[in-house]
């Protein structure tokens, strides 16, 4: 029995009222959904709330999952993405307020984004290894437009293939690739521009 069949069997058990099966689903997918929400919203608290909403929605609509149309992973990602888009349209999470003088995590004694970008000695790959640089990239990700952000999150962070991303976003595969390219390029330019402003 491969992974898809195992997950489908788990879903069937859950639909038939097996609470333990639902607990297994939550156990398997809550981390992944939390990360999508976290990278999209930029806030751990918001991501926690959104993840709970995603699972409540999944619990109510689990019987509508059609195993012949898509994999459960694609369905879960689609539910998550749709909920994120709904919240984004409401403007609740559309907040790009951090400036270069702000410190990640609002720590008074921490380094500002500008200060973190001043380190020119390390290459981009080596900078990513540090925790501060990760926060920097995370902040830059928030500044991308929602269309580009969701495309690069699904591809580079969730490792979905182009076909599944096209299903989730409901756009052609060529559009997915274009958005991923633009998202990656925009992110690199955004970090580069920020660096030039402070140097």
């Amino acid at each position: 029995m491969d992974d898809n069949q195992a997950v489908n069997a788990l879903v069937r058990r859950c639909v038939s009222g097996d609470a333990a099966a639902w607990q297994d689903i939550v156990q398997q997918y809550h981390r992944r959904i939390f990360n999508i929400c976290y990278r999209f919203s930029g806030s751990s608290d918001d991501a926690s709330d959104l993840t709970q909403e995603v699972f409540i929605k999944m619990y109510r609509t689990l019987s509508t999952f059609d195993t012949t149309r898509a994999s459960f992973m694609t369905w879960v990602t689609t539910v998550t993405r749709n909920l994120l888009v709904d919240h984004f349209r409401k403007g609740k999470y559309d907040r790009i307020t951090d400036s270069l003088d702000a410190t990640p995590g609002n720590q008074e004694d921490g380094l500002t984004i500008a200060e973190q970008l001043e380190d020119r000695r390390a290459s981009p790959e080596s900078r990513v290894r540090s925790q501060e640089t990760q926060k920097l990239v995370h902040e830059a990700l928030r500044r991308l437009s929602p269309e580009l952000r969701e495309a690069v999150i699904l591809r580079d962070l969730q490792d979905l293939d182009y076909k599944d991303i096209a299903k989730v976003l409901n756009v052609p595969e060529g559009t997915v690739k274009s958005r991923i390219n633009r998202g990656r390029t925009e992110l690199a330019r955004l970090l580069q521009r920020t660096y030039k402003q402070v140097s």
Partner: protein
Amino acid sequence: MAGETQSGMQCAEVEALLAEALDGVLHGPTLAAFEAHQQGCATCRSMVEEARAGMSLLQALEEAEPPRNLMHNILAQTIGALPSEHAVVKPRGEGWMEKLKGRLAPVFAGVATPRFAMSFGMAFFSITMLLGIAGFRFGDMRDWDLTSKGIRKAYYNTEARVMRYYENMRLVYEIESRVRDLRRAATPDNTQSNQPQQEVPATNPNQKNAPKSEIRPQHNGSHPGYSRDMGGPELASYPAVTLATNPQARQPSAPPSSFYLGGHLERRTA
């Protein structure tokens, strides 16, 4: 974009193949043309480098750790259960009540909301209030016998009550009809004694040609509508015409209503 270069590949094609190139899935002449185009096109070269850098930065991001209580909160909000380290899978042959609850829970998940509960509560309150105004008391339901025997008994009791009511009403109407016939039988003597009074106005030549509608019937103590020989209004003259055309109806010996009344009394005494 610099357009087509010596490699024969357009800038648009480079952009379209960029994702596959960064994934490392380009091979053979396509990959060679892609790389050759970058050598001659600074714009595309810059774009590819930026995209590669962006991809490296994103893929280097570590997975965020969810809050510890997240799974607990999710399960509490969905099935109301707490996560356990050793989750016990419920056996399939569990009690039917638990099975039914498990099946109904997802179906009624949308109904079991505070808004629906509020609406249901308001509807219940309204119905209870209306029943109270109408005099219905839920305490009386304890006296109801809802067995098949009790329902049958209630049905026959109700039927007998309706029949008694019908028979009583029929008796009342028959007595009234009998009284009316007796009055009608006594009417000819009164009309004969009133005859000269009605003929006096007819001898007056001034009123001879007066219209019928102006002749007012003389009230003689009995109901004007039942006097057979009274002239003037059509209401009084209608029974006289009917009797004239039907000679048998003049037989005063046994009016039909008395027959029924007698029959009814016979049945009642029996």
